[in-house]
């Protein structure tokens, strides 16, 4: 019976792995989490490291700049992780998104992506099809009104990713009337 339970636990442990949950960065697997200046499009957005505050139960990404030109950065794991055993990346976040500038033509926006990429070079853009292995633009905000959400869940199909890759939140923010935060609660490979 004990062997059966151990086998069941082993099988279950292979089905899903946390990359982040409630303050645990799962460092042995991820190497930890960091913010980095890496742009999704260097011709449009200046590479800028977002803020990253690590709390006891969550991590808070900050996009602080208001009434400024477009910026882009990532919050990523330090180690590449082999996604071969997994099919889905799932994240749970709280959103506190500031409204965009009301100035006509400002093209204000906040964009959130989930991305897997084998190449971390900041000389490339992570939205290039030669760089990412899987990418989803999971959140788009262009309204002058603020937006808030709790326990929002987003997923990315990683069933075609059969190698070790960087896993990250890709971020874009431009002409915000107020700063924005993304509170990371959970990041999970299934």
């Amino acid at each position, binding site marked *: 019976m004990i062997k059966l339970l151990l086998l069941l636990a082993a099988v279950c442990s292979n089905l899903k792995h946390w990359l982040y949950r409630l303050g645990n960065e799962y460092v042995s697997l991820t190497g930890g989490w960091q913010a980095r200046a890496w742009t999704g499009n260097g011709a449009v957005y200046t590479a800028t490291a977002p803020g990253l505050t690590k709390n006891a139960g969550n991590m808070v990404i900050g996009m602080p700049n208001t009434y400024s030109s477009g910026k882009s950065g990532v919050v990523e794991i330090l180690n590449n992780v082999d996604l071969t055993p997994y*099919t*889905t990346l799932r994240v749970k976040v709280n959103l506190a998104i500031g409204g965009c500038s009301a100035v006509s033509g400002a093209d204000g926006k906040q964009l959130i992506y989930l991305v897997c990429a084998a190449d971390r070079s900041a000389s490339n853009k992570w*939205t*290039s*099809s*030669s760089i*990412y*292995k*899987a*990418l*989803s*633009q*999971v959140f*788009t905000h262009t309204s002058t009104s603020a937006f808030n959400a709790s326990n929002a869940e987003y*997923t*990315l*199909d*990683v*069933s*075609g*990713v*059969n190698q070790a890759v960087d896993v990250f939140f890709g971020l874009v923010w431009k002409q915000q009337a107020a700063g924005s935060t993304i509170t990371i609660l959970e990041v999970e490979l299934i």
Partner: protein
Amino acid sequence: MKKVYIDAVDFTCHETPGEGRFEHEAEYLDDNETHVESFRYIPEGYVYTRASDGEQFSGLMVTRLE
């Protein structure tokens, strides 16, 4: 951005038009991308159902197939 033809069922990308495909300007495929058949592209507003387990994913999402 590259013009591709996307299969309406499985959202695989193709270089040429064909039955069951719709034309799309793919923002996240490079102009010089020569292997568009290596990608699944789900445009914004579309939903892809993964055949292996029925999991649904909302666009905009792009994945390599290999």
